């Protein structure tokens, strides 16, 4: 019976589909250009869903549970600039192809690819790892007065600001059995090496010992009420926190808080988009059949490919333009 079914489908290759390169006169578009715009519409909804989640969770967060000022603003600014530059160079690459200047195209495309690669490298080798070595504990509300020196809630209340429940910095010693014990040992060695202090070592088995962020070191300092453009180094001050006073404690990983969950999910998904863009650009830059080889048989087709890949790249750039302020600045 199967043969009788199969004989109805005697096909070997794609059918000749019109408007793959030349525009359809009444719509003024070649098909891929329409396709990429529709794809971008779906991408707007995808990131729209994530940004709505950000708004929903941030509005719904209990006072004091949505941090700010934890990300490195100069690095983020530099990365923003890099992405914007790459958006310009990808247009130059496309324009060079339209003018049939292959060498210029290759040059500008290379710059674009490098910009994307720098962006990802900064994210993956500097920004994210720094977070994974930064530790925060949320203090139980009933125990918070014990840690007033690090939380400064009186000062915050007088200034009409939301309370602070978190103490953060580098973990120097963890309670017994903690998953972060190894990390704490490394940090402790580093801390001892820098400060020549050894007095912090293991006061009790169920304590967290944390080398404090400036904001927890001097929580009542007015200077800490405002965000800082330049990231300030950790203080030399140490906090010892009883594990029984802790509501939850972890490094700045997705599981730490809904803030970092949204941060890592959105920047991670954005990073995947950057990676996808780089791979497509590499394909169009290298002498593949659909890459620069295509220039010699059908340069307009290659220009079209660069155009739609570029549209995608602009979108990725645009997403970052939203990501940067909502996570780094607000």
């Amino acid at each position, binding site marked *: 019976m199967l043969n009788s079914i199969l004989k109805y489908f005697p096909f070997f290759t794609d059918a000749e*589909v019109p408007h793959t390169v030349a525009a359809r006169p009444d*719509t003024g578009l070649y098909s891929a250009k329409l396709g990429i715009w*529709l794809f971008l519409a*779906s991408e707007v909804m*995808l990131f729209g*869903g994530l940004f709505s989640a950000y708004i929903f969770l941030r509005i719904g967060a209990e006072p004091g549970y949505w941090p700010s000022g934890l990300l490195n603003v100069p690095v983020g600014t530099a990365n923003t600039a890099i992405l914007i530059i790459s958006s310009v160079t990808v247009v130059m690459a496309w324009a060079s192809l339209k003018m049939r200047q292959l060498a210029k195209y290759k040059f500008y495309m290379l710059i674009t690819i490098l910009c994307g690669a720098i962006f990802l490298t900064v994210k993956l080798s500097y920004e994210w790892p720094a977070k994974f070595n930064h530790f925060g504990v*949320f203090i139980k509300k009933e125990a918070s007065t014990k840690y007033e020196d690090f939380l400064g809630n009186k000062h915050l209340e007088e200034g009409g600001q939301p309370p602070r429940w978190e103490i953060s910095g580098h973990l120097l010693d963890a309670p017994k059995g903690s998953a972060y014990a190894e990390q704490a040992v490394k940090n402790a060695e580093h801390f001892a090496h820098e400060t020549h202090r050894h007095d912090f070592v293991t006061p009790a088995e169920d304590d967290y010992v944390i080398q404090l962020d400036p904001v927890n070191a001097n929580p009542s300092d007015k200077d800490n009420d405002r965000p800082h453009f330049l990231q300030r180094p950790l203080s030399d001050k140490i906090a010892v926190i009883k594990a029984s006073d802790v509501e939850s404690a972890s490094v700045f990983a997705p599981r730490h808080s809904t803030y970092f969950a949204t941060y890592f999910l959105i920047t991670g998904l954005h990073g995947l988009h950057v990676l996808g863009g780089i791979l497509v650009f590499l394909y169009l830059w290298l002498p593949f059949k659909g890459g620069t080889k295509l220039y010699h048989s059908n340069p307009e087709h290659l220009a079209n490919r660069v155009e739609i890949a570029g549209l995608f790249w602009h979108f990725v750039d645009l997403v970052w333009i939203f990501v940067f302020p909502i996570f780094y600045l607000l």
Partner: protein
Amino acid sequence: MATIAPVEHGHHVGTDPHGEHHHPELGFWQKYVFSTDHKVIGVQYGVSGLLFLFFGFLLMLVMRWQLANPGLPVPVVGEALKGVFGPTVMTDAGALTASGYNVFGAMHGTIMVFFGIVPLAVAGFGNYVVPLQIGAPDMAFPKLNMASYWCFFTSGVLMMGSFFVPGSAAKSGWTAYPPLAGIADLEGGNIWLNGQTVWLVAMVFNITGSLLGSINFITTIIQLRAPGLTWMRLPFFVWAQFVTAFLLVLAFPPLEAAGFMQLTDRVFGTSFFMPTGLMIGQKVAQSWSGGGSPILWQHLFWFLAHPEVYVLILPAIGIVTEIVANNARKPIHGYKPMVYSLFGLGFLSFIVWAHHMYMTGMGAKVAAFFQITTIMISVPSVILLTSLILSLWGGSIRFNTPMLFATAFLPMFGIGGLTGIPLAFNAVDLFLHDTYYVIGHFHYVVAPGTIFGLFAGVYFWYPKATGRKMNEFLGKVHFWTSLVFINGIFFPMFIQGMAGVHRRWYDGGATYEQLTAPVLHWNQFMTVSAALLAVAQLPFIFNFFTSWKLGQKVGRNPWDATTLDWDTPTPPPHGNFDKPLEVFRGPYEYSVPGHPVDFHPQTQRN
């Protein structure tokens, strides 16, 4: 079918000296499996969809047995089911466990919606028929089309495979509400290899395939219309697919985002949907930092899942419109208002989602907004249904099998729609929420509504795809028995629901007998109806396979139809059309006064 197929083919290649013996393996895989031809992909999607529909129906049969005979072993197949699904789902005696009931319930919903109807209605019929109806040689992006099917295929394999992971498949409902879905099967289990996690991964593949397909549909319809085929000359089915594709492009991504979030909640311990102070078994959950919102999931889920309802129904309305016009031998009444109504429906479907969430206590003002939009959406729905009924008026109707299913669609969809109106109101919904009334309501829309529309489509386009008609007598047996028994299942649900029977009761309400006694006996009636409905599908299955060889042979245009899909050779070859096309008129010029025959094809100049 699937198991014998490769064997038969191998036999053919080995023995037939005139067969395609130059590159037999490569040829087979490229032509019939990894094909880029829209017709092959349409059939792949369609057959997959039919198989999933049948499987989802069988899950429901086991559940219905349990509802009517709580705790009794499933007859005949009970022990076999134990062997297949394991001890989580079936007891040693072969009865459905409580956990198994939840598994089957969640998977029935998931499979029917995302693996049955959408693939068959949107991707199956859409792929096969839309390029033919607009006079295109193929879809705009044939390779993307193939990628779409294989994304769907992967998701299907994952979803079926999830029955066999430890703890069996997802059991938190097809809506996967957290925090229940967030914690399901995690304690002591593998965080990756469990039902709910696999469900999420499978859904991400499913959504990706669906997005690729719908982008392709919109581009194809805009870019590849034949010369002269202006927008208002498009067959209504094409319009329906056009709006459906927009719904999919815009509504599915938020669910994909939500799926990622629930996945990271389960795998990386984030708290997108896990609230502060969550208690699991009298203990505060320690695995999550808290601060998340279960309601956020409901918003993101229903932002997809309400438009999804229209994704399920619009292609069926499109099919029914084609068949009604063709068999009433009359132009569609109010073609343009119907097109505008489609757009109205499409737009409004994005702003009604929270009517699924009245129970969350959203407050009177928000509820008022969603009540108003929900009532507004009935206006375009009624325009569509009324236009179709008026299209029958004064026609000389041919009641062949496709037409029987199409006409039955109208009152069935009507019942489904009208019973939804009380649910639009907050006050009524608080009483009826999660009762069998709601189940009856949406099943009338989707089962005797959409599925009847899809059956109509199968009978209608089968001759185009195979060159032979399906048997009329068997078709009529299939229709009349299905019509009776499907109502036997769903109508009593309204009665039970208004008496307060809850949709999630594993014993059909026996525990609450003092409340449910007056309506409990309907359980037996519905279960018998469901079993008979299964029997009623046998003529269809038999007909579907035998007609391939034995059906009445037909030419290009067996139904005397006007649209371009009947202007190709039967079955259509690669590239579809054997002549240059030009379109001169609208899609439904039937019984035009002065014309010698009662149909005037779109490509005929005079």
